[in-house]
């Protein structure tokens, strides 16, 4: 409990640099202070969360409070990463928010069945993305209570 919720890391798993830029901007505009870490593919997401290789340094790569997970990714897909997370005993309670441009019912169903905490479709405009970031801030960072084990690390 050394770190407050507002300072805990957020991990964005996103291969599209434009979307990374727009997301950073939206978070900033929503005045979210939490540091944002970004990985560009599914394998890196697994390595980051497992603390493999360079990611074993938790000073440089802190364990996140929330993961924003795109579905269509190089190597492991978002669904694969999610399935892996829910199979890891230490990660079952990690908050995973799917952030994707797909509103296919099959993608949504599969994500929830694999244990996603929330499913957000990337909004088409910057304003809507900003609104979404603000909602996220209030809901997940202000009011949501995280499980105890996720604050260990």
């Amino acid at each position, binding site marked *: 409990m050394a770190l407050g919720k507002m300072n805990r890391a957020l991990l964005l798993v996103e291969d599209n640099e*434009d*979307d990374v830029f*727009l997301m950073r*901007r939206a978070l900033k505009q929503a005045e979210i202070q939490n540091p944002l870490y970004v990985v560009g593919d599914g394998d890196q997401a697994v390595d980051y969360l497992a603390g493999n290789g360079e990611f074993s340094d938790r000073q440089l790569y802190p364990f996140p409070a929330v993961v924003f997970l795109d579905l269509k990714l190089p190597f492991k897909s978002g669904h694969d990463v999610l399935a892996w997370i829910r199979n890891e005993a230490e990660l079952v309670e990690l908050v995973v928010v799917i952030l994707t*441009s797909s509103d296919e019912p099959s993608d949504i169903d599969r994500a929830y069945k694999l244990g996603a905490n929330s499913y957000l479709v990337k909004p088409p405009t910057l304003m809507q993305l900003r609104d979404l970031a603000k909602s996220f801030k209030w809901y997940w960072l202000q009011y949501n209570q995280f499980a105890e084990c996720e604050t260990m690390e």
Partner: protein
Amino acid sequence: MGESGQDVVDDTSELKQVETRDAWLAAIVESSDDAIVTKDLNGIISSWNKGAQRIFGYSAEEVIGKPVAILIPPDRQSEEPGILARLRQGQRIDHYETVRRRKDGTLLDISLTVSPLRNAEGKIVGASKIARDITEQKRAQRTVRESEERFRAVVDNISQMAWTATESGDVTWYNRRWYEYTGTTFEQMKGKGWTVIHHPDHRERVIAKFEESLRTGQSWEDTFPLRGKDGQYRWFLSRAVPIRDAAGKIQLWFGTNTDITELQEARQALARSHEDLEKRVAERTASLTEAIAQMEEFSYSISHDLRAPVRAMQGYAQATLEDYGRVLDEHGREYLNHIVRSGERMDRLVRDLLVYSRIARSELHLQPVSLYRLVRDIVSHYPEMQQPRAEITTRGELHSVIAHEPSLTQASSNLLNNAVKFVAPGVKPEVELYSEQQGDRLRLWVHDNGIGIKPEYRARLFGLFERIHNGKQYEGTGIGLAIVRKSVERMGGKVGMESNGNGSTFWIELPSAQTDS
């Protein structure tokens, strides 16, 4: 009469017995159907019964004392010396079939039995001759032979192979076709010779089955290959039936072999082409499945890859406006606004297309859906359909239909969106909904006070990308009504519209959930 009379009596009775016996024998001879004639060793006729008179036409008075040669046709005169010679040696001639001549000159077939006549000393003194008229019998035999020849002539010329066999299965005759096909001779084929032209793979089975029929007397049928003279085997359908005499005893078997090679080949070709068809269907199904998979992959890519750059264009334009709007003049800001609006429109198009393709390919589970609840839920989602911006009312009860709820929600909300969107400037949209039972179907009517649709555009109304209103005045992608039609048709329904200058009336028709109408 006294004692002496006793002897006389005895003599008399013996004589009487002799006389009686002679009379009796004479009666037999006289009443016989056969000609009974005696002659001496010189061939002179010495007695002539009634039968002889009837058969040959001469009376006893006419022929007794005449040579027997008068009964013999000129071309057979040489027979008599031989017969006489044999008689002198004490030989008997039994059932000698020959031809004799009647008084009127006509010829007749007879069967002759000639026995030597001896006197009391045992010396041959003449001959008794019994002649039986066998003309009828001969004619019957000829008829049988002729009918048999006719039968063979017919059977020789049929396209099938045919044969006859004895009760024990030995073949006694084959028709010509058999020899033509097999290139064999009767000598090779007779008895059980036929087994050699059977295919080794089938021979045992065929013989066993044929023998079974011989044993039971049941008609026989089998299918097997037979070797032709060219060494090639052809397939035959073979049948044989037993021919029985009046007592039911099998006299012979009559069999045929019909060439069914072409039938067999046609069957095999049919089976092959059936297999081929199955394979082609499987291949087509596979390629169709692949096409569907590609289509799904394509839709997925649209939803993800195509929308990302649009989002980026829009996002950067927006960001530029926000961060650098102050250093741009009004034109620069307007250009960026155009980019933002175009991006929004592009994203809406892609999303509508995705909805369309999803409706076209998704599996629909149909169940009763309450139209009232459905409409109420739709209206509660859209502020532009609620007071004070619009008024949506229902007339009467809306009832229920059999539908896929998400698809019907999509179709109905598209119709309602159009109804409140296409109104003249300054007019408050008023929409009335009502349902109408039509047999086992239910029609949902959506009547608006909008700008209506010109009759010439109605045919295009439900097409994809069809826009029949000015884009500057009324936003739209031209996909909304195509989605309505596609989804309703996929649920087994119909859509349509009517316009009477006073707004438009769209309808959706689906199977009614009401069991009784």
